């Protein structure tokens, strides 16, 4: 008779075992976090966001402006981080929240406030403008709240301390409420900041009165609107957290045999929503969506090259340029040397062919290169492409710096409908995207997809296990190139012209950041990544100046806290959090053993 060890027996064992005392909140860490927090606050202050016209004075909620909000969010958030209890280890008692959390928050807050106060005193007495061009008199005025420097420094110190305290004290609140407060605040911030966007969208949905109620014209959320939004989302988070509902649990709850149906239903709803998007977004934001869509198309292609096959290509913009220029040459009457003036769809085979050739041209010389070397060489190829189209040598064909103008709009073949409106172009891009997403999934679970993954994991072993590494790598480059070239062709017809300066390194970098932060080898991650990193900056034009600062900060944050991306592919998550998964696996085998032994 096998020994039956039920869950109750296990619990008994663990309660009998002597536990080590709880690990206290680390105050030295709080000092470190406080110093970083101070540095961050001084950085934000010196970058001058507080006093930037049309940025620092954006009203989020009645009376709360973006500049101050972002500055004072730092001590509050990092105070909360500083007061975070140490990770729960097995064999230790759970750390109970207490005065030490508050103390840690205060430490971080004081240090942040002190750093800001010091900065103000220095900047107020010494002219820093030659070095820090944003430290202008209006900025100092804003930071000193119309008081004398000494009083203002005290105010900064005091408010930093208070906010750090608040951040730390939040740990005393039960987790459910904490999540609700956070959720509510984040949504108030988002809805307040994106006033123009929500105003337009609600208007198009025939719910303009909601916007009228929520917002005070041109000045962020009204107090009542802000409170309402906060209450709504806080309640939602509290409810979801209380019921422990997430998308995943909802999916799991559907019986196995009905999953397929449920999936089809969700797909159909998504499709209907997607078809309504241009109407909801309106003309201007449809254009934004199109830009994001073109980037997404590229990102899906790069995701195959980098995410699946592991070939770090930093010159991906080359294929985008090839697509744009091929489309322009074949369709535009303004093409200098050779102008067959085909329609967009008639030119597509040429675009795909040119991309495939470009893929082979770039892929062949780098077949034997790995990792860093591959990255550097492809970076070079990207620049070479731009320089060729810019050169006098190729000017008779590509028009050098003048580019190629008069790229015609897309005409739907059978019906002869010309697409002028971005709201209509959206549907064309959607079709291309649907194809790219479908192809991504189809390839992932195919013989070639597995070969790509095998090369990414261990090229030598892949070859030893029969994968023709040469062919597989070339195919990865070709598929990536084709996706990017389709994006390029759409881009050319969208803006109606192509210029060399549109194909700088930064395009490659942006697409790469999209797929890394979104989640390598994860299609949903890539989609979310391009919405957050391409569409959002287009909506928030006021932040253009800080776009790459935000990219950089986001990348660092992601590498430290979530290296697998927003929506990771399952396997990457497992590799990067190996220990946790290992524990899960162990638990699962234990359960399995129990059930087999009991049964």
């Amino acid at each position, binding site marked *: 008779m096998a020994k039956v060890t039920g869950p109750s027996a296990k619990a008994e064992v663990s309660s009998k075992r002597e536990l080590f005392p709880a690990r206290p909140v680390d105050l030295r860490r709080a000092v470190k976090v406080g110093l970083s927090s101070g540095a961050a606050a001084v950085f934000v202050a010196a970058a001058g966001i507080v006093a930037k016209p049309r940025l620092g004075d954006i009203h989020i909620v009645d009376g709360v402006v973006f500049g101050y909000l972002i500055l004072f969010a730092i001590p509050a958030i990092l105070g909360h981080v500083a007061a975070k209890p140490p990770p729960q280890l097995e064999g230790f008692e759970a750390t109970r929240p207490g005065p030490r959390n508050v103390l840690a928050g205060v430490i971080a807050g004081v240090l942040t406030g002190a750093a800001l106060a010091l900065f103000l005193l220095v900047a107020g007495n010494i002219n820093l403008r030659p070095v820090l061009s944003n430290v202008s008199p209006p900025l100092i005025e804003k930071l000193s709240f119309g008081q004398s420097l000494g009083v203002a420094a005290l105010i900064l110190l005091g408010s930093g301390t208070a906010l750090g305290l608040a951040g730390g004290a939040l740990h005393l609140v039960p987790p459910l409420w904490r999540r609700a407060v956070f959720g509510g605040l984040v949504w108030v911030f988002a809805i307040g900041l994106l006033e123009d966007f929500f105003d337009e969208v609600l208007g198009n949905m025939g719910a303009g009165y909601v916007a009228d109620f929520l917002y005070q014209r041109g000045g962020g959320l009204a107090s009542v609107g802000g409170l309402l939004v906060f209450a709504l989302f806080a309640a939602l988070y509290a409810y979801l957290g209380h019921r422990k509902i997430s998308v995943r649990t909802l999916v799991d709850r559907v019986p196995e045999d009905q999953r397929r149906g449920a999936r089809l239903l969700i797909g159909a709803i998504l499709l209907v929503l997607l078809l309504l998007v241009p109407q909801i977004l309106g003309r201007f934001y449809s254009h934004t969506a199109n830009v994001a869509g073109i980037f997404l198309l590229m990102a899906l292609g790069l995701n195959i090259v980098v995410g699946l096959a592991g070939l770090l290509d930093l010159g991906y913009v080359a294929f985008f340029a090839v697509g744009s220029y091929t489309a322009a040459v074949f369709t535009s009457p303004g093409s200098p040397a050779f102008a067959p003036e085909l329609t967009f769809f008639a030119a597509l085979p040429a675009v795909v062919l040119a991309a495939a050739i470009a893929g082979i041209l770039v892929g062949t010389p780098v077949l034997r290169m790995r990792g860093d070397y591959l990255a550097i060489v492809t970076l070079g190829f990207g620049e070479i492409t731009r320089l060729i189209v810019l050169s006098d040598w190729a000017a008779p064909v590509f028009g050098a710096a003048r580019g190629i103008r008069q790229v015609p709009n897309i005409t739907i073949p059978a019906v002869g409908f010309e697409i002028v409106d971005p709201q209509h172009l959206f549907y064309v891009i959607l079709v291309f995207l649907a194809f790219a997403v479908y192809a991504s999934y189809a390839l992932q679970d195919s013989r070639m997809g597995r070969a790509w993954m095998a090369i990414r994991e261990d090229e030598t072993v892949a070859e*030893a296990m029969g994968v023709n590494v040469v062919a597989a790598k070339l195919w990865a480059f070709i598929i990536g190139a084709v996706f990017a070239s389709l994006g390029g062709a759409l881009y050319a017809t969208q803006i109606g012209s192509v210029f060399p300066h549109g194909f700088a390194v930064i395009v490659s970098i942006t697409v790469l950041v999209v797929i890394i932060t979104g989640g390598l080898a994860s299609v949903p991650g890539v989609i979310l990544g391009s919405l957050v990193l391409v569409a959002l900056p287009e909506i928030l034009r006021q932040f253009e100046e800080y776009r790459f600062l935000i990219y950089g900060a986001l990348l660092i944050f992601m590498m430290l806290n979530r290296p697998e991306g927003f929506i990771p592919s399952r*396997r990457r998550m497992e590799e990067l959090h190996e220990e946790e998964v290992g524990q899960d696996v162990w638990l699962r085998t234990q359960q399995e053993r129990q059930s087999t032994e009991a049964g």
Partner: protein
Amino acid sequence: MAILEIKDLSRAFGGVKAIDELDMHVESGEIVSVIGPNGAGKTTLFNLITGLLPTDGGEIVLDERNIVGLRPSQILALGIARTFQNVRLFPEMTVRENVMVAQHCRTRAGVIPAILRLNRREEAQIRKKAEETLAFFGSRLIGYRFDQTAISLSYANRRRLEIARAMASDPRIVLLDEPTAGMNPRETQEMTDLIGRLRDERKYTIVVIEHDMRVVKGVSDRVVALDYGKKIADGTYEEVAHNDRVIEAYLGRKAVAEA
């Protein structure tokens, strides 16, 4: 009949002759153990046979065809599969996918059939075969394990998976590089039995590098001893184990003199 014949094979790293004018052969259906002290050139021999390293000279003849200079993937396609001393799986791929990869050279569907979904039948076959291969190891690698990543497996299971991957390529010769390294005695015994089953049930010819003499004794039809890249003994386990040069290679000259 010799299925694999190695003639006059050499390979040096700088001044060190890892394999030095080696001659050996493997008969069809036999289990040959390759033994020798550390640095004797055993793993180098495997790397030369599978094409992972270029040779300096000599021939490797598989079925009367010289395979020197072929790419590793071509050599696998001709029927020589291997495992690695320090288990080299595809860690982020699932157990099933790891095995499916090995059928790459036996299947055809490329990128365009995959996009057009013309590969369904072949995919189903690849999948079925992978699952059948994994079932060879009893219940260890099947069921929910199919969809686990290779990295989440225990050490012994990783070794088993590596063998399953080699099996899925339909080899005639399987080269096992220290299949029991790091295993406990029970797992080692299991592996010994498994190597026998691979020959008896799967009809593979097997060359195994092994340090554990109980395993060598348990599985080998024939033992080849290497030292400094040269063959110093070739014969049954008993013959090789009592060969003076082998004892000398392992224990040093003095020990032999005293014995």
